[in-house]
């Protein structure tokens, strides 16, 4: 069978989707595109290590077939910042020791990046006092919103500290409604 000409845009470049329709978005990124920064921790949507950002939203790449992403825009950890030029979130993770073994870390960072956007858009969470109102910032809000990313090393406190620092730095008055 001729290779499919269907593509998805990954980290700014159009990439051909895989031949095997069974291939998940996660396996396509890792195996075909060599983007192994996205991790496979459970392959069943139970750990968050495979979190990537598709069309601006974080998802578990393990539970999605690559072929369902034709034309989508996909961002992985590799697009957020490189080891030589870390993004603010990545720098904060290093400074706060927001990881130990490092395996859940790319997922945590991708998740945090998209979470900050969700927060900026005024999304509520399960711990928001009033679901109809714009949520107030709190550490409990962050914990709830990051709960789709497991860390077995138990770096949670440091992860939250890193994200809080970046959110505090980036918070600007009048940002509401962004």
């Amino acid at each position, binding site marked *: 069978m001729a290779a499919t000409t269907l593509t998805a845009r990954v980290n700014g470049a159009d990439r051909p989707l895989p031949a095997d329709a069974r*291939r998940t978005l996660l396996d396509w990124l890792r195996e075909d595109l060599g983007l*192994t920064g996205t991790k496979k921790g459970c392959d069943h949507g139970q750990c968050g290590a495979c979190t990537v950002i598709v069309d601006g939203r974080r998802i578990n790449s393990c539970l999605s077939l690559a072929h369902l992403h034709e034309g989508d825009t996909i961002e992985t950890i590799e697009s957020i910042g*490189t*080891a030589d030029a870390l993004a603010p979130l990545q720098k904060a993770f*290093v400074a706060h020791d927001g990881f130990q073994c490092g395996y859940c870390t790319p997922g945590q960072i991708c998740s945090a990046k998209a979470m900050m956007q969700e927060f900026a858009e005024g999304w509520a969470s399960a711990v928001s006092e009033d679901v109809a109102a714009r949520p107030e910032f709190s550490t409990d809000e962050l914990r709830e919103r990051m709960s789709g990313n497991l860390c*077995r090393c*138990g770096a949670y406190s440091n992860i939250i500290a890193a994200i809080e620092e970046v959110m505090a730095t980036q918070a600007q008055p009048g940002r509401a409604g962004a």
Partner: protein
Amino acid sequence: MALPLADLYNTPDERNLLDTMKQGVIGKPLDRPEGPLKVSGTATYSAEWKRSDCAEGFLVLADIAQGTVKAIHADKVLAMPGVVAVLSDEAMIRRSTQGTAGEAPAQDVHTVDYFGQPVALVVAETFEQAREAAQALEIEYDAAAEPVPLDPQSPDAKIEEPSDSKPVKGGDLDKAMREADYAIDVEYDTPGHASAAMEPHATIAEWDGDRLTLRGSYQMLAFNVKEMADCLSISPKHVRILAPYVGGGFGSKLGITHEAVAAAIASKQLDRPVRVVMTRQQVFQTVMRRSETRQRVRLAADAAGKLVGLGHEARVSNLPDEDFAEPVTQATEFLYGGENRLLKVEVARISRMTAGSVRAPGEAVGMQVLEAAMDELAQKIGMDPIELRKRNLPVKVPVEGTPYSSRKLVEALEQGAESFGWDKCKTEPCQTRNGDWWIGMGVASAARVNVMIPAKARVTLKADGTALVETDQTDIGTGSYAILGQIAGEMLGLPMDKVDVVLGDSELPPGAGSGGSFGAISTGSAVMRACEAIRDKLAKAMGCKAEELELQDGSARHGDARQSLGELTGGKDIVEVGSIKPGKTFKDYSQASYGAFFAEVGVHAFTGEVRVRRMTGAFGFGRVLNAKTARSQCLGGMVWGIGSALTEELAFDVRDGHLVNHDLAEYHVPVHADVPALEVILLEERDAAASPLQAKGVGELGICGAAGAVANAVYNACGVRVRSFPLTLDKIIPHLPDPFASPA
């Protein structure tokens, strides 16, 4: 090979060298040097090495608990697209390998020892093809003629004494219990636990002639090489393992596991690289579990709250013939007094996946129960639980009579109490209600034995004035890269950007590996000794004694003389291998890390849900080598404590022996929302008996007793004493006070 005698750590090194150095990097909360790679997704883990023409293997697990493989219908599967082999080799391993085994575990997968044991490997061109074929593989079994029980509480289970430990007996415990002013005799259960490291076990195997290279996820490379060589009946010299980054271990990667041997055999047979990655479900079903325990604790105290008797007896389980028995009473031996004592572990032989080391084997579950029982005693006496603990710290280890090397338990209890605000703890339960939540506080001691493992490391002071540290030591998230570099930087007077650390290659000098909290003190001591040897040479070149030599920022000073390290090397690299081996200090002194936990919990007055609101841990583990990574180790341990207290439990179906909750959806490790603000206090301590670094182990201390503090806080909150971990709401609601009633 015997190590030279000088390597043995026989007398405490009181020189305290690290405190006399000038660089000032030791102990500092420096960032991990590998951090930028990890946060950018460019650190390469086991399954991520690109090897050309690599085939994909997928394990097939037994769906019976005990029996023999009668037939494997491979033909149908071999005809499927992309399938290149179906293996069920006699050399494949039945059980995962115990830590520090250094030899093959039970082999030959045609015998099935437990439900979920790997029995075959299917290899195909792609992962999807291999998975489909593995799912299609039909296997017939003959049931075992004489199966062992599936339930550790079965009356038919054979009970044995552990092969490597004897009961501790002293005086007459029964009499002490009868005559005591206060006596507690309670039975607690703890369930099995899974390590659940985030990176599933994975190996890429490839051969070059008769030489095998494994890229995988392992904790102790020097042992793993021997284990693999023994499995394949080849020379250890022909096995190389690369594991520069390991996505968590917690005991589950101490010894080689099924996928590694299967990959090696398949690669040999197919003459191409083969990768085998376990699925999360397979990891749960096949690698190490922590044994469930049933523990009886007896505490006999006099009128002043001094222990006169202490009993701690545990039943654990394992497969027949396994030496490992969860050493539940390990810390009980030295923690508290009570001359009349009986400490004992027994093993029920059952059919479940291998029981072995899971983070802090022994203390993780032994301490949480002992500390809950101590709280029961304090409540019975009507004594502050901190005071009870302080009154019962012996001068020497009971029965054995050995002195303590260093013990910061009192300081941990006192400083932790002050920082936490323990004085606000109500002595009676059900005193504080915040909306729908009962609020309570609990305390527990922390203790974990200090262990050293023989270790070597090579340090090169290069002619350009930079240093290179090399050892096969792994960094499983523990901070090995950071602390080994800091030790070398401190000893050689180099800033961290002049020190490179290379780890995780079995061709490098054998470090201790990661496990038992021994990696830092063992391999770190080897690095320090290599640096001492380099300092001797530099001193000689400088024309002074080593202790007179000051090294800082790449310069050497003696009196007014000053030279750069580059000059001193004379243009030649100085290469030294440091070595250390546990010696007499480990017999002469009782060595352990200590601490204290303080927890505040809320118990929902209606639903019995327990949530930890805040937690403080104060810890003394000798010198802190890196305050940032050490704190992280403690935090991680406390998170494990929360999981052990509230949510984690392996649930087996005792009808067929299968693990029901074999995934991360139903085996509940804590998530972000379960973990509140955690405070860690690191106490200043130097322990010369423990290591020349004056440091002790820290990697597991944070879990050892933590769940006890949570359980005690639950009692303090709502008056419900649950003697079965985890404290899930179903065990709490039958005993809760009327939710509509006002607080007492």
